[in-house]
């Protein structure tokens, strides 16, 4: 080995060790456990495909949680992208405070997944929380239980998720800035309205970024955990039970860790499939720069 490649290996070693120790080995173990009857504190016992069989044939809650997760992702991802784009468009305009606003809107996506914000959110939507106090201010005392009601609890989680549009917003902002101003100038000369400028120039040139954001946020949406775990725990009556939280319950509350591992692999397969489907739609709506 030359001196240079030795240095290269040494520098990348921390990453390689990390990858093996914290990703590849645990993944391998998880795959093995998914074929086992395993409860963490005793030794795993190999049971073949039993866990997978039980998932698809004998577990209603598995299907319920899958449905809820799909619903959550289908509503929150488009909403989040919409807000991200809308706010990015507004912040594109240069004023003295732009930098401040950008930082402010980005903040929720750094802290939004944290436990503290989840607890804050829980208080905000409590029956004696800030939201109800504000509504009470309009007249009658209002003590609706947002979290205690099967039809509204999921929306508390969706709103929290939409609120964290910052990282998508930054990516939109970066690519909005790269659209050559000459295109807009030409359009203006031709008398195009702002709406048609958006539809004919901005949006098509943004589609690659939109696609990237869509894929990333969809994956994030399916993997959402903290909000549900802290705020609702799947309550009431499993109406907000995210797939990941159910997986956690199976693994660490009922100690069906092998079963939980099987759920994780099913999730991986599902996400891979959805991502593949999204890539399949790419050629119909994503502008590839004419390349």
């Amino acid at each position, binding site marked *: 080995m030359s001196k240079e490649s030795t240095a290269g290996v040494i520098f990348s070693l921390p990453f390689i060790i990390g990858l093996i120790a914290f990703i590849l080995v645990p993944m391998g173990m998880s795959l093995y456990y998914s074929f086992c009857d395993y409860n963490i*504190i*005793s030794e795993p016992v190999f049971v073949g495909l039993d866990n997978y069989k039980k998932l698809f044939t004998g577990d209603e809650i598995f299907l319920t949680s899958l449905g809820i997760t799909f619903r959550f992702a289908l509503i929150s991802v488009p909403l989040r992208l919409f807000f991200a784009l809308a706010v990015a468009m507004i912040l594109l305009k240069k004023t003295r405070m732009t930098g401040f606003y950008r930082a402010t809107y980005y903040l929720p996506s750094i802290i939004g997944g944290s436990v503290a914000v989840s607890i804050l959110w829980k208080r905000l939507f409590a*029956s004696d929380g800030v939201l109800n106090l504000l509504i009470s201010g309009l007249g009658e005392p209002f003590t609706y239980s947002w979290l*205690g009601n099967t039809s509204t609890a999921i929306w508390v989680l969706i709103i929290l998720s939409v609120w964290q549009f910052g990282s998508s917003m930054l990516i939109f902002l970066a690519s909005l800035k790269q659209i050559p101003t000459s295109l807009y100038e030409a359009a203006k000369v031709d008398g195009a309205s702002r709406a048609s400028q958006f539809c004919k120039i901005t949006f098509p040139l943004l589609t690659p970024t939109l696609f990237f954001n869509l894929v990333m946020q969809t994956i994030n949406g399916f993997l959402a955990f903290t909000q549900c775990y802290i705020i609702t725990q799947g309550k*009431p*009556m*499993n109406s907000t039970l995210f797939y990941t939280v159910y997986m956690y319950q199976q693994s660490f509350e009922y*100690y069906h860790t092998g079963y939980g591992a099987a759920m994780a692999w099913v999730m991986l397969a599902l996400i891979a499939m959805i991502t593949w489907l999204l890539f399949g739609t790419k050629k119909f709506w994503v502008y590839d720069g004419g390349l």
Partner: protein
Amino acid sequence: MKKGIVTLLVLVLSLSLCITAIAQESTEPINLTVAWWGSQTRADVTQAALKLYASENENVVFDGQFFAFADYWNKLATAAAGHTMPDVIQMDYKYLSQYVSNGLLADLTPYIEDGTLDVSGVDQSVLDSGKVGDGLYALCIGINAPSLIYNKTLLDANGIAIKDNMSMEEFVALCREVYEKTGYKTNICYNNGTTWAEFQMRAKGIVLFQEDKLGGTQEDLEEIFSIYEQGIKEGWHVEPSVFAEVSIGQPEQEPLVYGSTPASMSWCAFYYSNNMTALQNAAPEGVELGITTWPSDEPQKANFLKPAMFFAVTVDSKAPEAAAKFLNYWTNSVECNKTLVGERGVPVSAAVAAEIKDSMSAVNQTVVNYINNVVTPNCSVINPPVPSAASEVYQLIYQLQEKVCYGAITAQEAAAELFEQGNAIMAGK
């Protein structure tokens, strides 16, 4: 100049290494990690007791870790898998057999034999509750009993009298009366443990969690849910939505002491007696709590004394002997138990219990009095430890309770589902 700085740094570094080495040689600290679950009150008194022990044994360094009940068991299970369990862990009756059968706890018998751990002051039956097979794997550190803790101030102000060993009928009448007079509702340990269900079955002479099935018929089980159905229908049970906003099982957030309106609060809480301190500490200023038995038509059959909790030494401990010595201190030191103020239940050593009685707070004296004079003369032997499948049945009972309270199913349907699914879970399917 630069060379000078480097030399200086090297000197400082080597000097500090030398000092550390010397320091280590002279004391050889023993690190003991102690883990437990429970309220803030418990955390405070336990940390204080650890500090006290460390001040008397300067080579012992403690790391006290505390969690909420549910998180504690997750954490412990993961630590068990990685063989990094704390030295001393608080153990529950429910999990004892599971941990012993997986070989995770150290047998304390040798330490008793060599005199490190003195248990001569502990009642044999209490000591035996920590036995599995021939080994003593856990040391009971407090005794308690199911207890109905109620808002005495509220009831007194409204001229409502309460008596020990109420029947179910009297209890329901009381719930209605309190609701009508004050607007305060009742919480019958909603989604918080299944002791109440087991307690109800005990009154019928049934052990709920048996080796591979549930005790009782479907009709017997219906009683577990019908009280909720009735309470919600008549309006005196706390609405299930209230519980969506709190952490169930944390005494600080129990509707007895936590809530903004009478409609979201309860006049009583179904708990174990040792939680009275935590509840009293969490109660609003000026509210005095009282304690009585859970309602039952057969108080003697239903009531029981429970080893509140245990301390166990794990097989992962590098200093099991030091851990045993610490348990000895915990059991026999009057000073230590004065610090602990009986928060985990009545001290197991009779001598210690007598010694600290006068220095206990008024609340704890009430609890000791309740255990000794109300429950002890009128109770029967506790159920055997539950098999591990029971924890999944708990979740099932919680979900069924929830559905009954939201009016999604009737008590009868809930009982049918519990009978069918619960038996399947217990049978290991």
